[in-house]
């Protein structure tokens, strides 16, 4: 089981929780588990079977886009964080 941190924008769709436990060995399996239980998340997180462009997923603090994308391995007890893509400058 892995704890997934949910950004404020998505909390309404997960009954206000800041963190949701989910099961899966990869990011894809983890998100599938989450979206199975909270179906309204799907429209926000996934686009054409890939991660939606404005969503970032971090496993142990690293963006999965620079790892193996949705196939990035998630070890039990890892920290997974979902965030909206944000600019700075």
């Amino acid at each position, binding site marked *: 089981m892995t704890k997934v941190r949910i950004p*404020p924008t998505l909390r309404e769709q997960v009954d206000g929780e800041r963190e949701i436990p989910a099961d899966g060995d990869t990011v894809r399996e983890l998100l599938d588990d989450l979206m199975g239980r909270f179906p309204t998340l799907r429209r926000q997180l996934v686009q054409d079977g890939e991660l939606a462009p404005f969503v970032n997923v971090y496993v142990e603090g690293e*963006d999965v886009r620079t790892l193996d994308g949705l196939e990035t391995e998630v070890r039990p007890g890892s920290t997974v*964080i979902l*965030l909206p893509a*944000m*600019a*700075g*400058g």
Partner: protein
Amino acid sequence: MAETRVAANLLELVGNTPLVELTPVGDVRIFAKLEGQNPTGSIKDRVAKAMIEAAESSGELEPGRRLLEPTSGNTGISLALVAKLKGYPLTCVMPENATEERRRLLRLYGAEIVDSPASEGSNGAVRLALRLAEEDSRYFMPFQYGNEANPKAHYDGTGAEIVDALERVDVLVAGLGTGGTLMGAGARLRESFPDVVVAAAEPLPGDPVMGLRSLEEGYVPPILDVSKLDRKVLVSNEDSVREVRRLLDEEAIFAGVSSGAVVHVARKLATELDDGVVVAILADGGWKYLSADFWEAEDVERSMERTVWW
């Protein structure tokens, strides 16, 4: 002794910042590029100068136009300098929770500030500025997030200067805001050091500044191509500040918040190497954060979560 030169104006003093060696991590040497030594104290002087000069040469920007730019502060301050020297009025769209020093500096330079909602962070400033520019054609918006002159300034400047100074670079770390530094300096370094790892340090923003209505309001700058990054590492405010304090305590370097995050990542990646050279780009000094509570705060996250730092 180095030759003392006379500059015709401050714009000639943008760039050519020093590299200084930090305490190594094992056999890995770490060099910090001190962008705080630019005229307004940040790396954005390079970007502001390049964007305005490119727009002037292309004829897109003519006397009489008013500049408009979304910024969390540093780009605005740099544009204020360039605008003053070149005679353009400037309006900055800035999150209302940017640090007080930034607002004050902008006003002192004579810039006008339009507030964007605190809860939307920099993304909200981008949205509001895009709308204002569309509604009023008197505005000229350099738009750092979509302007190729931004990464080009780092290709021609920041990156080229590093390549000139060092014979070997294994890792380049810079903060991710617009992506300009990472795209431009990263591309230049890859030409000289094909195996260089280009790593982004990015902030984990506090919940109160992430209050976008939906993830679809997230924003990826058009100049940023994430596939060109080898690593993209999230850094908490707490880890950033711990490193800012360590830089001051142990290296006597007075750095800004994003620089803390960058050096945190640089040292982390250094531990993954047996030997080598890591270059960290320190975007600004600590001056514009002096009023912040984090220098002494016990609960750093709480003291920082309501403010836009990058």
